[in-house]
């Protein structure tokens, strides 16, 4: 085959090649031979045979008609499918359903874990804000108001009130469960100190002059009792220093003084 094509081409050769090409291009399978038309005289078919012409038109019309119908027949109905096709279809569909179910359960568990963690986070946030409030009040970072008492201690007529007694008053109030208190405009927190100073007391670096006003938020009854109890700090103030002590219960004690948070130099939280 290849040899023949490499030969030089004369007009005669070309005819031969055409002949060979025809042979080579013939892809009829041996098993299904095309029926040969019998050779017949030219012109016979062209001359009018109206019946066969009509038949040709009809057949071609049928062909394209069927083609278009088949094109429009998009709804591949299951009715025409064979049994095995239907079985295969059911199998495929059920496999798909299983896959989707598995996917769904995966996503559901994912959703659940996400919701769980979201809940946890919300809870943690709630606790954190609660903690922030509590510690803010404890450390004196936040102003506070509420039920409590206002204690006024006058200048002592016998002697000036000393720091130890004043500190005892504060301690008594603490024992009675005071939540927030202040002394003459100084917020009393855990690190607050009291010292004697000229003409008064020194509290957290501020000089306080009498009369001393202690604002305390807590259970009114307990606080009053803590001061007025017989032999307590109230009577000690009266007896020893000659100062009058008044305890006024108030439903709305406002403590607007705040103390700036301490900077810790040595203490570190344990991780």
């Amino acid at each position, binding site marked *: 085959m290849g040899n023949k094509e490499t030969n030089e081409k004369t007009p005669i050769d070309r005819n031969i090649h055409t002949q060979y090409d025809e042979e080579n291009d013939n892809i009829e399978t041996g098993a299904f031979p*095309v029926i040969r038309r019998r050779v017949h005289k030219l012109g016979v078919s062209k001359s009018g045979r109206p019946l066969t012409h009509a038949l040709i038109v009809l057949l071609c019309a049928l062909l394209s008609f069927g083609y278009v*119908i088949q094109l429009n027949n998009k709804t591949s109905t299951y009715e025409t499918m064979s049994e095995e096709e239907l079985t295969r279809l059911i199998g495929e569909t059920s496999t798909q359903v299983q896959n989707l179910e598995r996917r769904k359960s995966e996503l559901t568990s994912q959703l659940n874990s996400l919701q769980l963690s979201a809940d946890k986070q919300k809870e943690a946030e709630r606790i954190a804000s609660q903690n922030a409030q509590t510690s803010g009040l404890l450390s004196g970072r936040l102003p506070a108001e509420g039920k409590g008492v206002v204690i006024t201690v006058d200048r002592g007529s016998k002697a000036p009130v000393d720091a130890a007694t004043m500190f005892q008053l504060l301690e008594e109030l603490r024992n009675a469960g005071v939540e927030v208190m202040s002394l003459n405009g100084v917020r009393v927190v855990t690190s607050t100190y009291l010292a004697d100073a000229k003409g008064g007391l020194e509290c957290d670096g501020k000089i306080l002059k009498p009369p001393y006003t202690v604002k305390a938020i807590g259970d009114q009854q307990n606080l009053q009792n803590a001061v007025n109890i017989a032999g307590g700090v109230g009577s000690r103030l009266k007896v020893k220093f000659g100062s009058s002590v008044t305890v006024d219960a108030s439903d709305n004690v406002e403590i607007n003084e705040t103390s700036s948070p301490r900077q810790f130099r040595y203490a570190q939280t344990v991780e």
Partner: protein
Amino acid sequence: MAAVLGLLIGLILGAFVKPDIPIVLQPYLPIMVVAALDALLGAARAYFERSFSDKVFVISFVSNVLTATLLVLLGNQLGVGSQLQTAVIVVLGIRIFSNVSAIRRFLFRG
């Protein structure tokens, strides 16, 4: 030409009239269309070979369609419908290709 005219008529008819194909006939319609296409291409080839005979065309058209349909019907009854359908389509496809190549040789003879 009669064949082209017939094809056009069929296309228009099929586009506007939308009949329900009987369910019995539905699996065979594609095969019938392919078989008819093969017959049409054979006729075209014969036309170019100047040996076209309308009688042969009509007979080959009908017999093509009938044979293809019956073969698939037989396959369906024997339970090898889809395989036989594939076989018929393959054979008809080969024939369509050979007819087209013959037509091509006539058109581009050089």
